[in-house]
C-alpha cells in the first residue's frame, strides 16, 4: 500500500510538514526517529494502520522540510508540536514516538498532560547514564551503522526496507537526506542527549508504555527501567532480539504490544 504525504500549514505557513496518514480506528500520532520518513509508508506504519488512524508528520528540518531555523531547542519543538496539534484539530490523542521522536513525545506529554491520552515510548533518547552512555551515532561510519541500529543483521526486513538506491542521483539524494536529518537531530541532542527531560518526566499523567529491544546497541536497554521509573503510570515491555529499529525489526511483536496497551 502506498500512502502519499500531504503537507499541513502550521503557524501561518512558517512550517509546512508533510504528514502521512492512513488507517482506521482511533487517531494515533506517530513521531518518527532520526531517519525521517523519506522511505514512505514502511511496514511498521502499515501494520499500525490496521488498528489505528496513524498520523505521521515529518519533524521540521527532516527530509528537507522547512522551518528548522525557527526551532533552537527542545522547548521550541514542544511548542511547535502544540501548534501542529492545533492545526490538525487534535485535542486529546494517543501519542507514540520512536527514538528522538520518543523524546519529543515524552516532552510533549510532560508539557501538555491534557493533550495525551496514552503514551508509547519506543526506545526514546533523552536521559543519560554516565556508566552506560548512549552510542554517539554521529561518529558511526556507514559500514558500521547497521550493526548499531539492528539487533539481528540477518533479518531480511533490513534489506527489503533499507536497500540503497540504485541510481547515482538516488544515492546522492539519500545521502543528502541522511546528512540533513542528522544535522537536524544534532540541534536537539548534540553532544549528549540529556536536555533536562529528567526534570519534566514526572509531569506525564498519561498511562505510558515503554518499549525496548534487549539488543539495542544505540540506546542501551538499561534506559528502559530508567524511563519507566520516572513516569507515574508506566509499564515496561522488552522485546527479545530487537535492536534500536525495533518497530521495523519485530513488527508483529511491536504492534501486538501497542494494541494490548492502547486497546
Amino acid at each position, binding site marked *: 500500500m502506498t500512502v502519499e504525504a500531504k503537507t499541513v500549514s502550521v503557524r501561518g505557513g512558517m512550517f509546512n510538514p508533510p504528514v502521512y496518514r492512513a488507517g482506521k480506528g482511533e487517531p494515533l500520532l506517530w513521531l518518527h526517529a532520526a531517519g525521517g520518513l523519506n522511505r514512505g509508508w514502511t511496514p511498521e506504519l502499515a501494520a499500525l494502520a490496521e488498528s489505528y488512524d496513524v498520523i505521521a508528520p515529518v519533524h521540521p528540518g527532516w527530509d528537507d522540510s522547512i522551518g*528548522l531555523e525557527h526551532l*533552537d531547542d527542545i522547548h521550541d519543538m514542544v511548542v511547535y508540536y502544540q501548534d501542529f496539534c492545533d492545526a490538525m484539530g487534535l485535542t486529546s490523542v494517543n501519542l507514540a514516538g520512536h527514538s528522538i521522536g520518543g523524546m519529543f513525545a515524552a516532552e510533549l506529554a510532560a508539557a501538555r498532560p491534557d493533550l495525551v491520552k496514552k503514551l508509547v515510548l519506543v526506545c526514546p533518547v533523552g536521559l543519560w547514564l554516565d556508566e552506560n552512555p548512549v552510542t554517539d551515532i*554521529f*561518529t*558511526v*561510519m556507514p559500514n558500521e551503522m547497521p550493526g548499531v541500529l539492528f539487533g539481528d543483521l540477518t533479518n531480511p526486513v533490513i534489506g527489503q526496507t533499507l536497500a540503497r538506491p540504485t541510481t547515482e542521483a538516488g544515492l546522492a539524494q539519500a545521502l*543528502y537526506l*541522511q*546528512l*540533513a*536529518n*542528522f*544535522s*537536524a*537531530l*544534532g*540541534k536537539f541532542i*548534540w*553532544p*549528549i542527549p540529556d536536555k533536562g527531560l529528567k526534570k519534566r518526566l514526572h509531569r506525564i499523567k498519561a498511562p505510558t508504555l515503554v518499549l525496548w529491544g534487549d539488543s539495542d546497541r544505540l540506546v542501551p536497554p538499561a534506559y528502559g527501567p530508567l524511563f519507566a521509573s520516572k513516569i507515574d503510570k508506566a509499564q515496561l515491555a522488552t522485546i527479545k532480539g530487537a535492536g534500536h529499529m525495533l518497530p521495523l525489526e519485530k513488527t508483529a511483536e511491536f504492534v501486538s504490544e501497542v494494541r494490548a496497551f492502547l486497546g
Partner: protein
Amino acid sequence: MKFHWFHLMPYPDLPDDFQQKHRSVWVDVPYSLFDAERGHQVYNEYMDELEYAEQCGFDGICCNEHHSNAYGLMPSPNIIAAGLARRTSKAGIVVLGNSIALYNPPIRVAEEFAMLDVISGGRLVAGFPVGTSMDTNYAYGMTPATLRERYHENHDFIMKAWTDESTFHFNGKYNQVRYVNPWPRPLQKPHPPVWIPGGGSLETWDWVTEMNYVYCYLSYFGYIRGKTVMDNFWKRVEEIGGEFNPFKAGFLQLVCVADSDAEAERLYSEHVDYFYNRCLHVYGGFADAPGYRTLRTVKAGIQAQGGAAASAQRSGMKWADFVREGYVIAGSPDTVAERMEDVIKGLRVGQLMCLMQIGNMPKEKVLYNTKLFSQKVMPRLRNMWPGYEDHWWINPLPEEKRARPAELRAPALSL
C-alpha cells in the same frame, strides 16, 4: 610577495605503529602517547623556530588553534603569540586563528587579540576560522547545525567591541552582555588585518569578499589540488564584483629545501611520511559532523577536506609521489623557486604560508630549511606582484615609538 612561516606544533614522538594501533590523531588520541617533559622541549624549540623565521626575513610568523590533537599542540595559540610578541620585533604575528564560535562570550577573543596587538606594537594579524569539525563539534561540543550562525554572531560581536569605543550592550542569540567595554582595544586602527582561514565553502567566499578580508586556504594537499579551489574562489570574487588583488588570498604549502633534489629526499622524506601517515590519520567519523558543512555547500557537491577519502587517496604514497603531486614542494633552491612560482602565479596568491617544520622534523633541519629558503628562494620571488598593494598587512608603530623588552639578566643579585 609576502612569505609567512607557519607552525602546527606537532607532537614528534608518535610511535611507528600509530596508524595500525589507533584510529585517530585527533579527538580521542590516547594521552598515554604524550610525555610532558618532551612537550617542554618541543614547545621551546618550536618557539625558537618561529623566532628564527623572523631573523631570516619572513614577513609573518603563524600559529593556529587545534584541540585534542597530537599534530597541533596549540589549543591556545594566543599563549604562543604572547611569547613571540616579546621575543620578536619586526614580523607580523599571524594568529590563524582563534575559533571564535567556541568562546562565550567572544569578548575574550577581542580582549586577548587586543592585548597581543598592543603588546606587539601593532603586529597582530587576526585570524577567525570557523574551526574544524574535530575541534568544534567533537572536542568542544558545539552543535554542528548552529556553528556557523554562532561564528557570525561572534564575529560581529568582536568587530563591534574593537571599533565602537563606547560601552555598549550586545543582545544576540548566543551572547547577551549588558556592558561591553574591552580594555584594551587594538592598537591598529580601525582594527588589525582580518584573515579568514577556510575550506571551499561558497558562503565563506561571498562573505570574505563582502567584508574585504583575506581568504586563506590552509590545505595540506598542495598547490595542484589547491588550484581548483583557488580558481573557484577567484571566479566567485569576480562574479560578485570583488576586485582582484593577490594579497587578498593566502595559501599554505609544505616546503623542503636542500642543496640538491636528492639531498632534500634524504633529509626530509621521513618527516613528510610522518606527517601524512601519522599526523593526518583522522578517524572518518570525526571528519565532518552532520550539519558542519551547510546544506547549501553539501548540495553544491563540495566535499569535506581530509577524512577517509583523502587518506585513501594518499595511502601508499611515497616521497616521489608527494613531490610530483605537489603536496610538498621539495628540492634544490632552483627546483623550489620554480615550483613556488607555479604556486604564486597559478593560484594567484600574494600571501604564502610556508610549512617548513613538518611532522617530526628536528630543529636543526628546520633551521637549515628555513635559512636556505630565505637566502636562496625568497629573494627570487619577492617581486612577483608588481603594481599591487597589500592593504591587508600590519601597520605597526614606528621604530622610535616602540618599547624594547629588557635584556634577560642573570642572576638577580647582580641587579
